[in-house]
């Protein structure tokens, strides 16, 4: 069973109504998936405005393509793929996909770590290069395989594996200075 926040099963009648162009059904679907789509976009893009635009564009594309959905995969995984495509397209537009970029120095402005465990993790994640962060998120949170991630980026599986290893190592390095924080995730 998927642990993705997208993994919401739609009632068949809701999908049928949406396919018939019922705008209320569209709205219901939007409400169900608003936060998963926005969260995915935010984590990949690390920008609130772009995440908002991605939410809009992905949902618009979903509704316009709904007639093409064939029930071969769960609806949520189809929507998630649309959202991933939209977010990665934005990364490409930004020209931020730099496979050689280096991690910036961590500016340690953190307040006592015990207060900010989740914040620290989110902040560390945000400091990863965009491509590395995307791979880490798609693998660990959305459950994509290395093969699937490689396809998204037009790269090999070893690219996905190395980005993941690199991202994990960087996260470990970023979080290590706080022994009282995140001890439970094995970074100390």
């Amino acid at each position, binding site marked *: 069973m998927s*642990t993705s*926040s997208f993994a919401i099963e739609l009632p068949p009648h809701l999908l049928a109504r949406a396919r018939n*162009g019922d*705008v209320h059904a*569209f*709205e219901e679907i*939007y*409400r169900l998936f*608003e*936060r*998963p789509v*926005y*969260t995915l976009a*935010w984590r990949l893009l690390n920008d*609130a405005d772009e*995440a*908002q635009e991605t*939410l*809009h*564009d992905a*949902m*618009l*594309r979903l*509704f*316009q393509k709904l007639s093409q959905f064939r029930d071969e995969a769960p609806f949520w995984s189809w929507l998630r793929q649309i959202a991933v495509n939209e977010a990665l*397209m934005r990364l*490409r*537009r930004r020209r931020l996909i730099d496979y050689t970029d280096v991690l910036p120095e961590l500016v340690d402005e953190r307040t006592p770590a015990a207060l900010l465990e*989740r914040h620290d*993790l*989110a902040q560390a*994640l945000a400091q990863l290069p965009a491509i590395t962060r995307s791979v*880490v*998120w798609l693998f*660990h*949170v959305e459950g994509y395989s290395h093969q699937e991630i490689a396809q998204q980026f037009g790269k090999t599986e070893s690219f996905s594996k190395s980005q993941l290893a690199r991202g*994990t190592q960087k*996260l*470990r390095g970023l979080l290590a200075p706080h022994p009282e924080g*995140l001890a*439970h*995730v*094995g*970074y100390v």
Partner: protein
Amino acid sequence: MSVMSESSAADDRDLALATSLRGLGLLAPRRSAWPELARALAVAAPAAAPRPRYRRRLWQFAAAASAVTVALLLWQPPPAPRVGLDPARSVSTQANALMQESERWERTLRQLEPYSGAVDARSALISAEIEDLIGMTDLQLGAASDPGQMAALWQRRIGLLRRLAEIRTDAAWQQAQPDQQLSMSQFNPTLL
């Protein structure tokens, strides 16, 4: 520590990381995108006539390729009457002018189509991205209802078409004169 137990510890750490990342929870947008989506869907409901896609349609133009080659080598870019968003002009006049300019660039691109496959890998990648963006702009145009937004989208579309024309013109020049590094942008600085 044995290799096996080191590997197991690493797996545990990754599992813990995945759990922690998932524990970051869901984020909510600052505003709902639904009102805008509802408007877009209402406008887009009548199926808009699809605009031409530029992706890999060489076969449609192959027959015309030889006929236009000479003309292309002599081709100069149009003086590019860059249509601006002048508040003094009526909305419909602006929209018509933008659409006409877009059509002009489409005609130019049709002439240049035989050279779309002659670009280097980097230019091919950029061209593919521009084509995607044109497709996305068309999608947004199909959904837009606000005249100001539509004008901005038409402007964007024109800019993308011009970029594509620039790449193909470079390819045409280089194919004709491989030792020259002449770029259209050298004599048309208004290009994006």
